[in-house]
């Protein structure tokens, strides 16, 4: 049976931002639709409206000509709209089967049969009786998909499904999605990754700043044309000149171990690597494989054995972040709003978080506000932070501007080494470009970078050497020009 989903004149306004501005779209089963846009373009809002999480201010939704009133996620389920969110909604300690039956009123036995049939049909192999926490991200996603399939949905919406998957898991997912589509399920695929759109989808709708920019068949588009539509301007492509770097060693990590007391953290075992001056070492991996722990050990938030970190011929493993800054290290953590900055504090107060002796922010225990403000103004102008008010609370900066402020704060001291963790996560293309250019500039000034990132493209673009972290262990270090994203994918999944 043919499914037709029509969205007509959807508008959703938040204070200070129009998330969806009069959006109308029509989808038909048999095709895979991409909904493409940058962060903040309004994709997620639209999808949440379709799944009943958000109620639009205006507009209507029709499924096969019936006007749907979606006031809750339950309404969406009742109307055969299934949704797999970017973040999994699973109970980690319950078994796979228990997770699947939680919102179903069918009998356990008949449901088990049904699940078995679904798994056989699509070649899923998951043990139903082990707890979810033992599953890989790809398997967890399959559990979420099965949960939708049990209800034989007419529409399946996938929200940025590949952000936690390896290359291999991604291609498996694409195969499944194509099968679903062939069986008549209408698929809407939300992403900001252009390559995926080209590979998977038949039609693509591009959104920008809450507005629908274009709807077109994929055959009429290419990566560049889509990028231009998404960003609204032509982007220059950045390329790093990969020169021979020096052999002057800056930081050397020797047999670094970290055993956590927290069962939800990853232990690090036998980490060994070194970075030379002017070099960028990229550390790839699927999130949750020890990146956060590695960052904290390198920054000094977690203190380790004194001799396990040698920096500029000093052993600094037992120093805290502030003491490490005195040795000219700088850190940009992953979490901008909860760690790298405090949204409720003014810009200049956030600048004072990176404090070391020669900055004179605090003299004899007293705050030297003039010094901090002077320094903040310099950062704002040097790093193109789009505001001129340093008294502004940093929560009013966009993600991109906040990240520029943080990177600027860390770099204004011209450190020898910058350690950054997912520096462009969640940013729009313009800001990503700016950050990438800045990082390349650092290397050109013979300063070094350790870039921990889950974005493979970013790593390949910026790194001189690359290693992969998997379950708290580092792979051997490879030269970036000998590495392909396929090879990284295999290592990220734990292969050889």
């Amino acid at each position, binding site marked *: 049976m043919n499914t037709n989903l029509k969205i007509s004149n959807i508008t959703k306004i938040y*204070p*200070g931002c129009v998330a969806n501005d009069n959006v109308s779209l029509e989808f038909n089963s048999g095709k895979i639709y991409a909904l493409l846009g940058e962060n903040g373009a309004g994709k997620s809002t639209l999808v949440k409206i379709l799944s009943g999480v958000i109620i639009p201010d205006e507009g209507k939704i029709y499924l096969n000509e019936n006007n749907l009133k979606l006031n809750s996620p339950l309404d969406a389920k009742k109307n055969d709209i299934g949704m797999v969110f970017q973040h999994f909604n699973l109970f980690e300690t319950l078994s796979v089967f228990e997770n699947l039956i939680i919102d179903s009123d069918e009998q356990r036995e008949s449901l088990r049969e049904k699940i078995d049939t679904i798994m056989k049909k699509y070649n899923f192999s998951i043990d139903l009786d082990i707890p979810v926490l033992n599953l890989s991200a790809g398997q967890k996603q399959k559990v979420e998909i099965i949960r939708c399939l049990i209800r034989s949905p007419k529409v399946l919406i996938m929200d940025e499904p590949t952000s936690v998957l390896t290359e291999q898991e991604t291609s498996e997912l694409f195969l499944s999605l194509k099968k679903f589509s062939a069986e008549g399920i209408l698929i809407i695929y939300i992403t900001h990754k252009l390559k995926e759109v080209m590979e998977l989808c038949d039609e693509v709708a591009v959104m920008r700043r809450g507005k629908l920019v274009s709807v077109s068949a994929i055959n009429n588009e290419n990566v560049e044309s889509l990028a231009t539509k998404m960003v609204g301007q032509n982007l220059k492509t950045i390329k790093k000149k990969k020169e021979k770097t020096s052999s002057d060693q800056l930081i050397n990590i020797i047999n670094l171990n970290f055993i956590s007391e927290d069962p939800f953290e990853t232990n690090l075992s036998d980490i060994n690597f070194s970075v030379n001056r002017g070099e960028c070492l990229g550390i790839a991996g699927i999130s949750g494989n020890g990146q956060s722990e590695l960052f904290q050990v390198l*920054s*000094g*938030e977690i203190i380790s054995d004194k001799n396990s970190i040698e920096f500029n011929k000093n052993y600094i493993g037992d120093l*805290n*972040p*502030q*003491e*490490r*800054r005195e040795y000219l290290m700088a*850190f940009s*953590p992953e*979490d901008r709003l*909860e*760690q*790298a*900055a*405090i949204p*409720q*504090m003014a810009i200049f*107060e956030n600048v*004072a*978080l*990176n*404090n070391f002796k020669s900055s004179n922010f*605090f003299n004899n*225990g*007293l*705050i030297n506000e003039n010094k901090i403000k002077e320094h903040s103004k310099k950062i704002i102008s040097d790093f193109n932070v789009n505001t001129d008010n340093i008294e502004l*609370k940093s*929560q*009013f900066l966009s993600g991109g501007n906040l990240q520029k402020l943080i990177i600027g704060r860390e770099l204004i001291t011209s450190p020898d080494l910058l350690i950054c963790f997912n520096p462009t996560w969640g940013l729009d293309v313009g800001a990503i470009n700016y950050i990438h250019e800045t990082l390349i500039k650092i290397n050109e000034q013979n300063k070094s970078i350790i870039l921990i990132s889950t974005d493979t493209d970013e790593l390949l673009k910026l790194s001189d050497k690359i290693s992969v972290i998997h379950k708290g262990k580092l792979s051997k270090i490879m030269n970036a020009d000998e590495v392909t994203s396929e090879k990284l994918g295999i290592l990220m999944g734990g292969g050889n």
Partner: protein
Amino acid sequence: MIKIVKRDQPSRAIFFFTPVLAIFLTLVAGGLIFFILGFKPFEALKFFFIVPIADKYGFSELLLKATPLCLIAIGLSFCFKSNNWNIGAEGQLTFGAIVSGGVALLFYEQEGFYILPTVILAGAIGGMLYASIPAILKTYFNTNEILVSLMLVYVSKLILDYLVVGPWSNPEGFNFPETRQFSDSAKLPLLFEGLRIHAGIFLALAAVVISWFVFYKTYLGFQMKVSGFSLKTARYAGYKGKKMIILVFLISGACAGLAGVGEITGPIGQLHREISPDYGFTAIIVAFLGRLHPVGIIFASLVVAITYLGAETAQIFMQIPKYTGQVFQGMILFFLLASDYLLFFKIKFIGSKK
């Protein structure tokens, strides 16, 4: 139609307005309660809030009660601002009083200018020692400071009970649970003839000034602010978290201990069973009503002190139990928390659509 809308940002004006609103709502609700009990609301409220402070003596009593509340609340704001939940100020007050009382008894019937400062210092140290227990357990053994500091309150009260009944009880006191009277050199001087207000108020005022300076002008204050918003950020910035936890607990304990000194070396001049009508707990309300701001705390301590006095007058003139005072304190906190909702949400009135 009424619609509740999230604010883009917490409003600064509302931040200072909600305590006033809370007090107003408390008055309305209090009037309602009096009405239900069969009193004339306005008259009852007058007895509660105006009669007690209508004369010189009443005003002195108000300052007398506000002094410990202000002092303790200032100390607590160091803890609360930096994300440490010390709710055992009552215990720190009691233990401070025990230590300073013990020192005062050592100087029984002695005279000397050095005695009072020693007694005061002993009280501060006692409070600090007692506050260091939850702080050290928190930093080194990861215990929850809320539970530890709260439970230690009861321990300190039992120690006090034991001392005033047993070893320290007045030999000529006919077995009353109280110690000997301290010598005059161990007592805080009274400020005016015939009034009970004593020099302890200067300790509170000094604490206000010092805390304002620390909060807004020093590196320590900045670190406390950062830790209050996000411990993760504090760790990333490289602040010495453990040191700060212990420091704020010590400051808070010292303030509570000084409040204890004021209670026993002021008008009373001896240790006995009931040295504090739960000032240590009520000060938590004062700290939040004052928005953890030194000046706010001064006003809050005056407002809350009235509820103590009002309860006493109400008992005398209207035969209402003095525990009504606690009902009012509870209502203030309740309405404050409730009206804090307005910090993040606003109420919009929308004309009904046809």
